[in-house]
């Protein structure tokens, strides 16, 4: 780790293919900034991403990184962190990636509480496959695959996380650059699973959940007197379907990462080129 890392050091020279104005630009900048602010550098950082426009994020950043398959980024991140707890692990994806195909992994990653940061670019639509409804789309949202609305309630990812025993639950808005970076930074600093749902508008396929919509409707918890350690207060905010909140909604300060509770001490790559001497004991067990 070096102290003079700048956030641009996390930028790769690959040219993003996101639509101009896509919320994911802001989401990514905030992530890079937060990584630099927390004293990380590309060589000790591992970014895992899923599939979708959102999933491309790892391909535009510079660090150790893997761009995996749809919905499975969280298990990959878990494996990385378990095998080398010294790495800063950041997992990123979209609402389809994380709450649809990967919903099972989401719940289990939350409850496992591995010390990593999970950033979901929630644009309430499937972007990469060109505009079908997503699990966070509103019930009356008309898309190419829901001409009469979805007739399904959107999932509440924050509630899912809380119910699964989440220890850090936050929400941010990609175009509120400073606030977003600050929230991601807190997630990184959190000892355990830091979950940030980021409103990251899709300017091409979603004309409902737009920049204007979020700008007008978001309530920043920083400006209210919200205490993230207050579970009941957090629950009220999370279950409040009438408002959209920004900020750290819930944080359990006593959280300890899974890998730590499991007693993993260091990188598992150090195995030498011969088995350990006491290995013959393993055979003797079978007498």
């Amino acid at each position, binding site marked *: 780790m070096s102290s003079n890392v700048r956030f641009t050091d996390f930028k790769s020279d690959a040219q993003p293919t996101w639509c101009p104005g896509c919320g994911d630009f802001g989401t990514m900048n905030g992530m890079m900034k937060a990584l630099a602010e927390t004293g990380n550098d590309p*060589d000790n950082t591992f970014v895992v991403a899923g599939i979708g426009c959102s999933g491309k994020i790892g391909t535009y950043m510079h660090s150790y990184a893997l761009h995996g398959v749809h919905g499975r980024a*969280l298990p990959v991140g878990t*494996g990385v962190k378990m095998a*080398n707890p010294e790495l800063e692990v950041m997992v990123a994806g979209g609402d389809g990636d994380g709450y649809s195909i990967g919903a099972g992994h989401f719940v289990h990653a939350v409850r496992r509480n591995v010390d990593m940061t999970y950033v979901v670019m929630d644009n309430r639509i499937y972007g990469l496959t060109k505009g079908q409804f997503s699990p966070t789309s509103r019930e009356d949202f008309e898309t190419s695959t829901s001409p009469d609305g979805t007739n399904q309630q959107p999932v509440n990812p924050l509630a899912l996380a809380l119910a699964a025993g989440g220890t850090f639950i936050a929400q941010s808005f990609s175009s509120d650059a400073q606030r977003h970076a600050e929230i991601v930074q807190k997630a990184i600093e959190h000892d355990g699973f830091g979950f940030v749902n980021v409103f990251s508008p899709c300017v091409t396929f979603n004309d409902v959940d737009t920049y204007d919509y979020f700008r007008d409707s978001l309530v920043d918890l920083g400006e209210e007197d919200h205490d993230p350690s207050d579970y009941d207060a957090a629950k009220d905010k999370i279950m409040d379907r009438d408002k959209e909140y920004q900020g750290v909604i819930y944080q359990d300060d006593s959280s300890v990462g899974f890998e730590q509770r499991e007693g993993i*001490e260091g990188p598992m790559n150090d*195995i030498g*080129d*011969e088995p350990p001497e006491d*290995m013959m004991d393993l055979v003797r067990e079978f007498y």
Partner: protein
Amino acid sequence: MPEDLNWAIGGEAGDGIDSTGKIFAQALSRAGRHVFTSKDFASRIRGGYTAYKIRTSVDRVESVVDRLDILIALTQRTVDENMDELHEGSVIIYDGERTMMSDFEAPEGMIGLDVPLKGLAEEAGGAIVRNIVALGAACEVGDFPIENLDEALQKRFGDKGSSIVDTNKKAARLGAEYVREEYDLDTDYNMETTDEDYVLLNGDEAIGMGALAAGCRFYAGYPITPATDVMQYLVGRIDRYGGKVVQAEDELSAINMALGAARAGARSMTATSGPGIDLMSETFGLIAQTETPLVICDVMRSGPSTGMPTKQEQGDLNMTLYGGHGEIPRFVIAPTTVSECFWKTVEAFNMAEKYQTPVYLVSDLALAVSEQTFSPDTFDMSEVEIDRGNVVDAGGIEDNTNDQGQFTPHAATEDGISPRTFPGVEGGAHMTTGLEHDELGRRTEDTEVRVEQVEKRERKVQTAREREDWSPREFGDPDADTLVVSWGSNEGAIREAMDFLEEDDISIRFLSTPYIFPRADLNEAFEQADDVIVVECNATGQWADVLEHDTLQRVKRINKYTGVRFKADELAQRIKEELGQAAAEEVEAE
């Protein structure tokens, strides 16, 4: 042909059949006798017929046969299920007091020993030691000194305190005494002991032990019969070496966790059975595309779908050879015996890292649930070598960069093997994607780069073909006219079938092929033989298909898909039939 004795205990699931059988198997192996065990069980926890069978001899035993000499029958059904393996002189130990057995009579020619198992158990200290009374009775029948049981009982019950151990010892002695006093037995059974000390383990345990020896540090899995024992073996033990087992929420998660750990530098593995392999196949492609070293173990069971979860089959060969969309470089290695489960696992880890590919380690239920005795030096750890392949550290980065000074983790090298670096290494930061990518790991749709990368990945297989020894394991007469080829757990049964065939003056050449892909070059062996017979536990002959395709030569097939493994005597018979038929056809042709 070894002087073997075949013993079994059968009853209802929940009757403690497994642990009783295991105690006896351990006692035999500690007494210097070789042991080969097999299990009949149904996919349920309580109820349903289940049996633990032991074949034992002072010589090595490699398989099961269709014969039972001593049977402890806790239920009438146990006798019914095994009727065709019983013979004149078989001894059946049963408890006439147990209501369901009240009208039991040993079939003609068989010796029924009515032993009040429950009554004697109560005398020893509790009905729960009923099975141990039966064990004692069996020792008496087989002329196996009862003291040999003591250590195994200590091992099994030591944790529960010395009085429990004593109760069990007493129960065994009461069983033996009862038989001695009540029956005037005159059988040929004589289980002599030797000075050897063997270890006893099954295929799943051998895979787990091989993984640890090979430096596996991370295992993620989801329970499934018959692969679960691999995970259960590793839990607790892997921690001693700084590793971890994670029980994932499903197979998709398991393989992705294993992938993450592998990319972070750990030797990493997952194990599952057919249904799990199906779920893993998408990520299997990702592993190949990102050139991540990973061992994926498939302990096959009977399919398709959930099929017969507790039954034997070798039906996943096509899946492991061809599964996954697109074209995927891979290695497929199938251990052929319990000890090979250990050695092939070690090899699988080396192959995975040397060639930066996924490796399928394909085992089967018969290997997984059978325990076998070995001399401890079969697993001589000093023979284990670990080869991590082309790993570069910070100092090596500079030598592996492009014109712009960027690290090239997917460089299209001549041998197809690129430099690999572990996260944390300075200057090595790079992204890899499951999308087609260039030498930097970055997404591309450039046709030239695409072709270059496809060929680069395929080149690894070519390199491995040249650098590794792909010989099959060879047995029998190298000049025989009949060539038998097989894979997986059938090796033992075929080797013993060769002894039976020998009695009829039939000698064969037998090639057991652990390398499914790349495979050994068998062309010459095929050309030399008049008859090639491919033996496998599936209906369609998946290995036979591959071999016919590759050698352009027709083969005969012996297939079994009842859910039960091949038995040595049965196989000898079927090989004879195949050959007899061939001879008959020849005559007709003339």
